[in-house]
């Protein structure tokens, strides 16, 4: 059974139709690329899935159950973590502070009831998580504000993979990175299913899509136009679907 099913989603913003009757499925342990030109509806789709925008029509199902994702908080409760292009990182704290931002672990007992945070525990767990995900950062405790673009992206992705219980959505995770930096993030995405999450990734970079994605779905002008297993061979066909010149299946 798919982890996530999207059935007949539509969304209008005033006079523009951002999504028309889009259906797709995300399978267990899959990395799904979402392709399309600007205005194809990719952003609207992931905003609906992460609770930022509400669909006008259609249904979202997680593990077969229809769900209503009416806020970002609800999305997180349903196990969906989203990494936007701006990353939503806090420069004034370290990787641990960012991992646990808004969900700080509290101590046991009366101190915990007063809101006393368990710094030691969070730091230890973060070190373990980073180790498990093989993310190398500057020495423990370094502020995220002092990290490079690649390291910041790695922190944001690692946070999503570590805390996302079912689904991680990544919006252009490599667009701002150099080749070597992008490589580290791509590895993280590729290995995400081993950590129990399925991934939806938006990217304009076809090479990166071929490297990490098991399947690519193409949207154009708000509609589903087709899907393909991304590879050297299907690259041209995918590009055709994106720009609308190829014969649609």
């Amino acid at each position, binding site marked *: 059974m798919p982890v996530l099913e999207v059935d007949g989603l539509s969304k209008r913003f005033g006079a523009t139709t951002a999504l028309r009757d889009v259906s797709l499925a995300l399978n267990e342990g899959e990395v799904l690329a979402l392709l399309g030109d600007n205005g194809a509806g990719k952003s609207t789709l992931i905003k609906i899935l992460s609770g930022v925008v509400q669909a006008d029509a259609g249904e979202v199902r997680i593990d077969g159950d229809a769900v209503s994702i009416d806020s970002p908080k609800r999305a997180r409760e349903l196990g969906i973590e989203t990494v936007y292009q701006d990353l939503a990182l*806090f420069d004034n704290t370290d990787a641990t502070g960012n991992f646990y931002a808004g*969900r700080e672990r509290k101590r046991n007992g009366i101190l915990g009831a007063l809101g006393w945070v368990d710094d030691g525990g969070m730091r230890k767990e973060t070190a373990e998580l980073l180790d498990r995900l093989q993310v190398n950062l500057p020495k423990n405790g370094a502020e995220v504000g002092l990290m*490079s673009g*690649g*390291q910041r992206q790695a922190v944001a992705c690692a946070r999503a993979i570590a805390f996302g219980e079912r689904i991680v959505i990544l919006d252009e995770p490599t667009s701002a990175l150099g080749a070597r930096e992008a490589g580290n993030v791509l590895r993280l995405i590729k290995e995400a299913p081993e950590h129990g999450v399925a991934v939806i990734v938006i990217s304009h970079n076809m090479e990166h899509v071929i490297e990490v994605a098991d399947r690519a779905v193409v949207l154009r002008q708000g509609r589903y136009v087709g899907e393909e297993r991304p590879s050297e061979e299907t690259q041209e066909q995918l590009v055709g679907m994106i720009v609308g010149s190829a014969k649609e299946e």
Partner: protein
Amino acid sequence: MSTAGTAIQRGLGTGSEQGLNLALRVIRVGPALILALLAVIMILASPFFLTGDNLSNLAVQVAPLACLAIGQLFVILVGGIDLSVGSVLALCTVTGATAYGWGDFGGGIITVAVIILTGVAVGLLNGVMLVKGRMPHAFIPTLATLNAARGLALLISDGAPMPGMPSIVTTAGAGELGPIPVPLLIVAGFGLVAYLLATRLQWGRWIYLVGADKEAARRLGIPVDRVIISVFVISGFAAGLAGLITAGRTDAGYPSAGQLDELAAISAVIIGGASFFGGRGSVGGALVGVLIFGVINNGLNLLNVNVYIQLIAIGVIVVVAVELDVLRRRLEERFRTLRGSED
């Protein structure tokens, strides 16, 4: 200071990671260095500076400012500003005197409660106006209450001091516990609670996160509006404490008290290394800023230096402190670039 200067220059010049790291560390301890330097100068210049009497006098003098600065710190941490605290301090003393005038209930406890709750109420009003009134910046609601609270204090008191405070209040403002002035104990207690809030409690973490990036905080489920309102309540509470100490020291409701204290508190917080951009600053730093104020005023008094020079000195130090923060941002930018190219 020259070693600090060299480290910063080296950091900017060569851009080596160690150099940058060192420079950033120097900036972080900058305020403490300034304070130490000032203290050394005063110790050398006046034999009276380091006497117990003088230090205790200094502590009592800066106690209200210390309370205001701690409150102001939390507002500045979320990128705000609270201009109202000087006026609120005065209003608190006046409402306290009014309550005392109605009768000495509960051994003065009622008076204390009225003083503190007046501050909390205005703080709450500031926060709610800012957030619910969707005002563009904290400057606006607190500018309004800067005027309104002063006006109300003058109106209630008819523009004149209202003498008489219960003994619990005069103890808070002028009492001593053994050799230690009570106002110092109040500051220490408030400072400790504020320190724990800032460093150990979840709500304090949220204050810092909201200061770093409100939109990100909202997306991660942090109740941003309530966090913002809360820092104004803390600042109002702090103004109430400062009002309590002032009322105790003057044994009166004092409608003209605390004028320009809001600017002194803001200066102290900035001098103490907090960033006006939000998200950075510490209780310890704010108190260091307050002490820099105190040592300058106290020291120059001891040396019989023209009082106007004190104002100029404070002005200079504010500029230096803010420039240090700007420099810090630049160094961090270098650091990122460097890390990026190494990756």
